[in-house]
């Protein structure tokens, strides 16, 4: 991974999660990170912003400033909110080109969360990522 391009939030995630011993601490961290998500307005929790392919409801909103993408996401499930937060920490502020090539599997592996991306997981992190890439490719 190209270290200098990592946003500060991503560095912070690495520090926090690589220090976590065991599933309980990881779960606590995820819940704490989930609290950091920028809240969505009720009107933004719309069908249109809903990511299909997640078992729990997930909403994703993208905006672009100076060719850099900013995402906001939310879910009803707390651990999933945490997973969304660490995903956003890695991809927020990237341009469309970098978004296409970002290795999210590597990112989650690095945080000890690789299992959350397995194809049998219905949590939808994979679906969220595809949606981000699709939104940025438009």
């Amino acid at each position, binding site marked *: 991974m190209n270290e200098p391009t990592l946003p500060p939030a991503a560095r912070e995630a690495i520090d926090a999660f690589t220090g976590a011993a065991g*599933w*309980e601490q*990881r*779960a*606590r961290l995820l*819940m704490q990170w989930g609290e950091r998500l920028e809240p969505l307005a009720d009107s933004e929790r719309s069908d249109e912003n809903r990511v299909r392919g997640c*078992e*729990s*409801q997930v909403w994703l909103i993208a905006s672009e400033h100076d060719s850099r993408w900013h995402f906001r996401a939310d879910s*009803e*499930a*707390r*651990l*999933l909110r945490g997973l969304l937060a660490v995903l956003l920490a890695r991809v927020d502020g990237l341009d469309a080109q970098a978004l296409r090539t970002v290795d999210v599997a590597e990112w989650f592996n690095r945080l000890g969360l690789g299992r959350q991306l397995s194809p049998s997981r*219905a*949590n939808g992190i994979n679906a969220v990522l595809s949606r981000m890439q699709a939104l940025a490719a438009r």
Partner: protein
Amino acid sequence: MLSSPWRSDFPALAVMEAQGEVYLDSAATAQKPQALISALTGYYTSGAANVHRAQHASAERATRAFEGTRTKLASWLNAAEPTEIIFTRGATEALNLLAYGMEAHIDAGDEIAITALEHHANLLPWQQLAQRRNAHLVVLPLDKAGHIDLEAATQLIGPRTRVLAASQLSNVLGTQQPLHRLLPLAKAQGALTVVDGAQGIVHQRTDVRSLGCDFYVLSSHKLYGPEGVGVLYGRREALARLRHWQFGGEMVQLAEFQHAQFRPAPLGFEAGTPPIAGVIGLGAVLDYLGGLDQAALAAHEHRLHRMLVDGLAMRDGIRLLGRPDCALASFTVEGVHPADLSHLLTEQGVAVRSGTHCAMPLMGRLGVSGAIRASLAFYNDGADLEVFFCALDRALELLR
């Protein structure tokens, strides 16, 4: 401590145990006994062959074993004759076969009755049939416990009812349905009756003739057998009313370019090469199951289920869906999202299902967006449930 004398017949359980995994998702698919693994290996190592086609020795051997399973199923279900047993690729395919096969008997304005707890496999084929024919899909409601409301059913099943399709045992609620009282209501109106026994057959031997249904569907992979095999029992006269639905292979009697004649059931409904190894394997599973002490098995499953339900009831804030009679329990926890709970159970090596369990409309009626389901098989034992409850407590401690 409640221990299962049959656990060692299932090699995967020792492997899972070594990996720290507890399997409580048998309602999704069951683990397989050594008897099945040996039968599959035996078939593939002694010479695979297609069935009902060639005359050579291995074909004869395969055909005999394949037809042997049909005979075993007929006696397992107490069908009148083996020709009442059709092999499909799964319970879902069997139900689709029925919905297409009956299409000609459904006219505009006719009614197809199902129940509010049907798995998508026993809902969507009928919903789509109703749409194709401009018929009405009538949904029979449930009582609080999760059994079909017979009073309402008496009102809703009427002279326009052509088909009644109902589950024997709910894959979400674990409730056994009062089919002995429900089916006669449909019969009295001249309707065909379809029973989805995908879950039911796993926990009770079923006699299709005393049940009095026209069709009965089961799924091999839930009954400790291989995937890719489903079974459709049809009463001889009822089968004769079905139209052929998939075409090709040996289901044809006479084929010309512009015209063909088809075989009657069962072969006429088994287009293409069937899942030969799977069917032979299912036969071996039936032999294995048939050799077990049924009373001991039922008593073990009953005790396990009591332990599961009582353990859940003991805990604060847990809401059971319905009042499960056997096999499984689905639940939600106040203030806790099921996805969070299932995430943390998975972290602790407990395999349960979370979500809508292929029954979205039922979840809607129950007013929940998802639930956790723990399901049992006779290879589970008390220790599995202790691990589950321990994991559940730790997860809830974290989440609340």
